[in-house]
């Protein structure tokens, strides 16, 4: 048997977090906590490893298949381990009218990657509207939002990524 999924501290956080989540729902509706439970797992491990999915399913008294059905439906869940920095660039209409296509090309060049390719350091993706239309163009790095982007701003953001 390989190493356990969680460190003892992580296991404690996970168990307490799930217990808290379950208290938000009717007792016979444990599986309702699926979305927040997956988010909790991902916040601890950076993605949704199979052993973790098993633990979520057990706690929520449902099947692993159900857990994967949900995990694979929503784009923010990573069923494969993503690069250290997940960079989501909005290329929808409001952003495109403010330079988003150029922004994406600029990032592809600077990071030497192609949008949609998961690498060890960067996972650059095109994403859909981030509700930042009046402050376009925008992107998110590991869910942190950045808007009104320019080349200078992007350069400064990328410099911080070690």
């Amino acid at each position, binding site marked *: 048997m390989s190493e356990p999924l969680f460190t003892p501290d992580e296991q404690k956080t996970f168990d307490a977090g799930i217990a808290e989540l379950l208290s*938000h729902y*009717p007792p016979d*509706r444990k*599986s*309702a*906590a*699926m*979305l*927040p439970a*997956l*988010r909790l797992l991902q916040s601890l491990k950076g993605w949704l490893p199979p052993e973790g999915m098993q633990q979520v399913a057990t706690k*929520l008294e449902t099947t692993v298949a159900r857990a994967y*059905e*949900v995990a694979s*439906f*929503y*784009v*923010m*869940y990573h069923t494969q381990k993503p690069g250290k920095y997940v960079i*989501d660039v909005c*290329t*929808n*209409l*409001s952003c*495109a*009218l*403010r*330079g*988003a*296509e*150029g*922004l994406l*090309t*600029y990032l592809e060049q600077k990071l030497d990657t192609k949008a949609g390719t998961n690498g060890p350091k960067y996972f650059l993706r095109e*994403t*859909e*509207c*981030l*509700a*930042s*239309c*009046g*402050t*376009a*163009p925008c992107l*998110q790095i590991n*869910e*942190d*939002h950045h808007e009104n982007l*320019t*080349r200078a701003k992007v350069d400064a953001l990328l410099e911080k990524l070690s």
Partner: protein
Amino acid sequence: MTILTEKVMTRDWARPGQNTLAVYKQHGGYAQAKKALELAPAAITDEVKKSNLRGRGGAGFPTGMKWSFVPSLEKNTKPRYLAINADESEPGTAKDRFILENDPHLLLEGIAIACYALGAHTCYIYSRGEFKYPSAVLDKAIAEAYADGIFGKKLMGKDFELNVYQVRGAGAYICGEETALLESLEGKKGWPRLKPPFPAVVGLFGCPTVVNNVETIASIPRIFEKGAAWFSGLGEAKSGGTRLVTLSGSVNRPGTYEVGMNTSIRELIYDKEYGQGLPEGRSIKAVIPGGSSAPVLTADEIDVKLEFDAFKPLQSMAGSGGIIVMDDQSCVVRSLWRVARFYAEESCGQGTPCREGQPWMARLIRKIEEGRGEMADLDNLVNVAQAIAPWPPIGLGNTICALGDAGALPVQSFVQKFRKDFEEHLRLHRCPLGNAPWGHFGEFK
């Protein structure tokens, strides 16, 4: 006067600390809930009906009427729920996030009033997964409200338990559709339900449920501040209050603004208080008036007021208040492709016309835009759209939910109103604008 002189929803946004309970209460916060909770639940719903408040999520449905569809406790003894739709994701729309960031207690005060009126002891706020910062602000506000005895066993001291939880989505536009939102709250993938039954009767966990948008519920305290007649009078015709709109695209000053229902799209684009027009020498090519699913308008059609019913003669809709402006140097075919690609990506895969039709339309538009198309593709494009949801009028969709319509309407309206642009792509076998299809602000600098 069609430029709003008195801000209603956004008046406190600039105040430092407004998103904390202390400052919110200092300036009269929760006084309206205290007042409303002295009324009988039915009287609260009556006030909301009289206010002419209409749903700000896109449909513009009268809020008080929606509440009144919940059956009485005598008829249905199941628990009832309020679900707040904070899954703001219709392209062009960025308003609810600012309520969460700047004035979260306004929403929570509205929730207190609404839940009391509905007899709901649990409220779930379903927020967009991508809203990291707005969600953190909201979580803090909820914790403050519990610590202060506003929520919990006794709602503001009343013998009425109210629990409020935030649930974060995980990146699925479809979960803004109210029955998909309920499925997601139940811990499932967001597949919309067949209606009827409607959520007011069979909603979350099979119980009566009202689903309301953030801006809608944040409007409730204002109704009780100066009365339903005042709130209704702020608006126009059957649309009470003011609205938050997001102006984006080829304008000098994009942003989120509070406008009167009688403000026109032209005023929004050109007034110095709002968009400040287009750059010198540029003119309007097209305007999407209510989020990307709303049928597009030409430059001649923008004198329409932002009131919900005003769009009917144009066969379009006020929707979620996302106004996207395309200037005369932006390509409408390329613009439509971006929109079509979105609906293709976000189709949940349940209904066949939508699952198959949206990607098909996106491919056809791309083909035309890149100069590989022929006339038959254009006819085919319109036929696919008509098969998903015939237009006009709006609302004839053949799919389980309105996402089918949402993807078809832009295609039909763009082709109808800008057919020449599509045909020019077919004739030239390329985009007439070459490598710069995004107008004045389209270059990344």
